[in-house]
């Protein structure tokens, strides 16, 4: 049966924590290539800080995906919420204490509408969210007039730039949201049912799971988290910028898919997503510091997304097929396997 040593080896295997190995490899490459730029504490602090919003966007994509809805509108949701929060502050003149809850509610409402389109109108999630994404982009342009919204007042900036122990607030917010998401997804009955609804909705329904309710709920939660990311984005750049939000989609989805290959053997999961997101960000940062042109970002994320999904497929089939794995794992096993 499983020995302790076997369990440790499996936990440390490339298949289980490939992102960590990729990180080590990238770290080594960039440290040797551009040590004077790459090995600066400031670089790492700004990375931690800047990518916290990507992390939130990734969680906003992760939660609906666990329950079975691939959300292609995450970027637009972040962007729309960013513009909305700027507009509420500058044009509607709401105080921050009202503006933030309003943005989160609006984000949740967007998730609700998406969820109802998917469950009631029976539109495939990928189509529903693609359509929703376009609608939100239109909404952003309408609200902002395709211009930056600038006059946000002096206090709002503090939310995303204030620091505690040298680390900005968004990092703590991401940590809090990640812990809460992890808790719900992996430690509660609701999370269990969400996974079952995502894996096999029909079997889950027959097991008494309210599949549609969970799907809608997951999109509402994802919408609120995306809105939080949007509000922080506006605070961070101290302006409502209609061009920034949509660019969150690819890094977020890439992190979620690469994350699914980490730790949990093919399941979408919170910590895999967060780790993958930062590993990918380190790669991008290193390339930028090395002086690559901006389009390398898109190239990098596109390749990473495809590789991440390919990796998860490989993981699925390799469980049975890999000759090397069989040789390694078959040693010392008797034909009757694990019957204790």
């Amino acid at each position: 049966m499983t020995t302790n040593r076997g369990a440790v080896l499996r936990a440390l295997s490339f298949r289980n924590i490939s992102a960590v190995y990729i990180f080590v490899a990238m770290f080594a490459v960039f440290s040797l290539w551009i040590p004077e730029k790459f090995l600066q504490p400031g670089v790492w602090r700004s990375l931690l800080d800047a990518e916290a919003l990507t992390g939130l966007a990734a969680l906003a994509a992760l939660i609906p995906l666990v329950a079975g809805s691939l959300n292609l509108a995450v970027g637009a949701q972040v962007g729309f919420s960013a513009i909305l929060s700027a507009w509420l502050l500058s044009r509607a003149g709401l105080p921050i204490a009202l503006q933030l809850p309003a943005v989160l509610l609006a984000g949740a409402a967007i998730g609700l509408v998406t969820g109802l389109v998917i469950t009631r109108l029976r539109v495939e999630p990928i189509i529903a969210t693609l359509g929703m994404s376009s609608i939100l982009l239109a909404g952003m342009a309408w609200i902002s007039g395709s211009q930056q919204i600038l006059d946000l007042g002096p206090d709002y900036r503090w939310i995303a730039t204030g620091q505690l122990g040298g680390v900005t607030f968004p990092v703590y917010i991401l940590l809090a949201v990640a812990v809460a998401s992890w808790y719900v997804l992996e430690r509660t009955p609701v999370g269990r049912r969400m996974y079952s609804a995502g894996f096999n909705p029909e079997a889950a329904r027959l097991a008494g799971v309210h599949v549609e309710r969970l799907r809608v709920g997951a999109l509402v939660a994802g919408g609120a988290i995306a809105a939080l990311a949007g509000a922080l984005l506006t605070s961070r750049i101290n302006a409502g910028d209609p061009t920034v939000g949509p660019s969150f989609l690819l890094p977020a989805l890439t992190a979620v898919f690469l994350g699914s290959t980490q730790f949990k053997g093919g399941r979408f999961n919170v910590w895999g997503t967060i780790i993958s997101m930062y590993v990918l960000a380190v790669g991008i940062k290193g390339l930028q510091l090395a002086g690559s042109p901006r389009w390398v970002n898109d190239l990098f994320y596109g390749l990473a997304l495809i590789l991440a999904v390919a990796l998860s497929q490989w993981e699925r089939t390799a469980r049975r097929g890999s000759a090397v794995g069989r040789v390694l794992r078959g040693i010392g096993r008797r034909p009757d396997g694990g019957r204790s």
Partner: protein
Amino acid sequence: MTGAAAAPLLRVIDLVKAFPDLVALDRVSLRVEAGEVVAVVGHNGSGKSTLVKILAGVHRADGGMVETAPGTELHFIHQDLGLVGELTAAENLALAKGTGPASVAPSRGRTERERTRALIGRFGPVFDVDVPVRGLTPAQRAVVAISRALDGWTHPANVIVLDEPTESLHRGEVDVLFDAVRRVAADGAGVVFVSHRLDEVLSLADRVVVLRDGRKVADEPVARIDRRRLVELITGRADVSSPRVRDRRGEGEVVLSVRGLRGATIERLDLDLRAGEVVGVAGVLGSGREAVPSLLAGATAADAERFTVSETAYPRRSPARSMRRGIAFVPGDRGRLGAVRDLTARENVTLPQLRTLTGPLGWVRTGAERAEAGALMREYDVRPARTEQRFALFSGGNQQKLVMARALRDRPAVVLLDEPTQGVDIGAKATIYEAVERAAAGGAAVLVSSSDAKELLRICDRVVVLREGRVAAELSGAELREPRLVAESYGLA
């Protein structure tokens, strides 16, 4: 062809296949001559599925080889049939053809449909070939798959591999299929027939190969073997499927009562289920038999004049509400509906009810959950009893034991079973029958819908026979005999 028939069509020599946890095939050899039907039988986990998968090229063997005579092709009908659910029967048949340049030629819908109808007609009544096969009954899907495998052979010296094709067929259809198989064999084809159903094996095969734990334990002409011997070879012990002595249970309270139930293929059903009894539902394909458990469980939409559980009206039905009322449902399509394949055994078993396993702040107490799942797996003899193994990695029989364990976990008042032993080996069958007995003895009302008459006779107190969506007969006591049951099913009584 017959002239050169000295060489076998298919030769399997010393095949070895090892998985991380077990040796699935241990030097298995096999030969199929032209015109011969070779049955391969064995428990779940005996290695017969692995053998088929290697022949089909799904797995690669670790040792040994597979040889075919020159020009001989292998054709497969797998248990899951390999049909594209969204395509119609005609389109599924056309899929295998038109490769190469022909694949971009316009398809001729009308001709294809007529061909399909003609092919299907060989197996019995022709059904609608223009609806997606997903909407057909399992038996109709099997007919489509079989038609496809036999379609368009250029010469007869091929080998057809039937991997448990009769799982969802009723007796009459099995006979039609067997006639077709015999005809193909008589023309000079070789047939490999993999099945759990020993009676079928004995009636169809010329030779029987028995696998146990990855080894070949027998390879004999069917004439030299009988059912008892076959069971001994498969299990390594004596026959376990002898009919039990049915002790008529006392009249319990009516737990579930329906009047005028109507939905899916059921026109009208009146039924009372009493505590402590096992009620069978029999009927041929299209009788509505397969719809009953799912309608009663609220999984399929249905109208009813009256639907009460423990004398309380139950108007708006859903699986979740049924569960709260103590109605457990085991669907027939285990792979698709029975459980969530990508969750572990533990997660599947506890999925319907996690309330008793949660601590403060609503977390799941994993230790307690693991202990409970482990205890259930041992109680239902699930092998291996590993709570953290993914459901998909268990063999068919053990999957079904898990699904049963889940259904019976909270001592439901009503247990609805659809084909509870379909595609399950003899050992698992015995475990499942025991579980049914125990549930009934514990006061549950059990309903079993099954295409297997012997199964109903063995475990049921009474059997409701359906025909064309209505109750045709109800048999119990001395009337509950196989000839009568079959006669009523076909409307011959």
